[in-house]
């Protein structure tokens, strides 16, 4: 018999961890629209570029989507900030799940979380061949910035 925590309570736990500041600050995340998303589908995250790379000191905004079959199905991940991660991030900012270990080997029974997705991306940035890859101009985005997306940086 199944006794695993159900989707909504897993996501509530994730939210609580993010509200308490679970990570070292290099990756943060929260609900995109906490006022009106009782099923916690749309999330925003940010990744601080790792040191000694061309990503250093830049902040990358990411959108994550947890469908109703989360965590059986991993979240979809899209970069808002333009980034050059060859073979990983497609031309429209979408992350190819096959190219990111945590998504490719997603295991809903393990401790894979939204934070581990963001950390996985950050780890890739710190590795060859991405580390020293030429990057788009800082602050450019894939989609037209809406005024309310400023809040994502909170």
């Amino acid at each position: 018999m199944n006794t695993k925590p159900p989707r909504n309570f897993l996501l509530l736990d994730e939210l609580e961890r993010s509200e308490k500041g679970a990570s070292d600050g290099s990756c943060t995340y929260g609900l995109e629209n906490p006022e009106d998303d009782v099923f916690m589908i749309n999330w925003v995250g940010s990744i601080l570029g790792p040191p000694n790379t061309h990503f250093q000191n830049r902040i990358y905004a990411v959108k994550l989507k947890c469908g109703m079959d989360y965590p059986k199905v991993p979240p979809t991940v899209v970069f808002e900030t333009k980034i050059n991660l060859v073979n990983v991030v497609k031309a429209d900012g979408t992350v190819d799940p096959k190219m990111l270990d945590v998504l490719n080997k997603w295991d809903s029974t393990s401790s894979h979380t939204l934070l581990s997705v963001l950390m996985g991306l950050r780890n890739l940035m710190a590795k060859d061949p991405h580390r020293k890859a030429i990057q788009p101009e800082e602050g450019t985005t894939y989609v037209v910035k809406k005024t309310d997306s400023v809040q994502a940086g909170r």
Partner: protein
Amino acid sequence: MSMVSKRILKEVDRLRQDPVPGIVAEPIEDNIRYFSVRMNGPNDSPYADGCFTLELYLPDEYPMLPPKVRFLTKMYHPNIDKLGRICLDILKDKWSPALQIRTVLLSIQALLSAPNPDDPLANDVAEQWKTDERKAIETAVKWTALYAERVVRNDVAKRE
């Protein structure tokens, strides 16, 4: 079967045979620890005309740790936030293993009758409650009509 599962099954049995008036809790699908709850608003409250949906999960450590429970229906209440999370002492530091699903649900229902704006979870709502209680209650009534199911009162009467 472990002692804990036995306790849960016993609680579920009792909820079924001796239901709390105005509250229905049923296990969801195949998960013995996960419940869908429907709760009528208390008669003497702005929520009286509504039937509200909640979800409840008993963590592995239950009953050493309290159940996790939240509203799925949008609520206008100073101790319930936008995600339906509930600020209630017995769900936190005042939890005791002697409490049960039944007592938790009764306490939540009681919280609907007795909002406590001095210990708020939804700050804007609490503020409204303190500065203009009449208007706050009006909004709670409005939200109940908007988001909750209408209560079928004679259904409750029939069962008693």
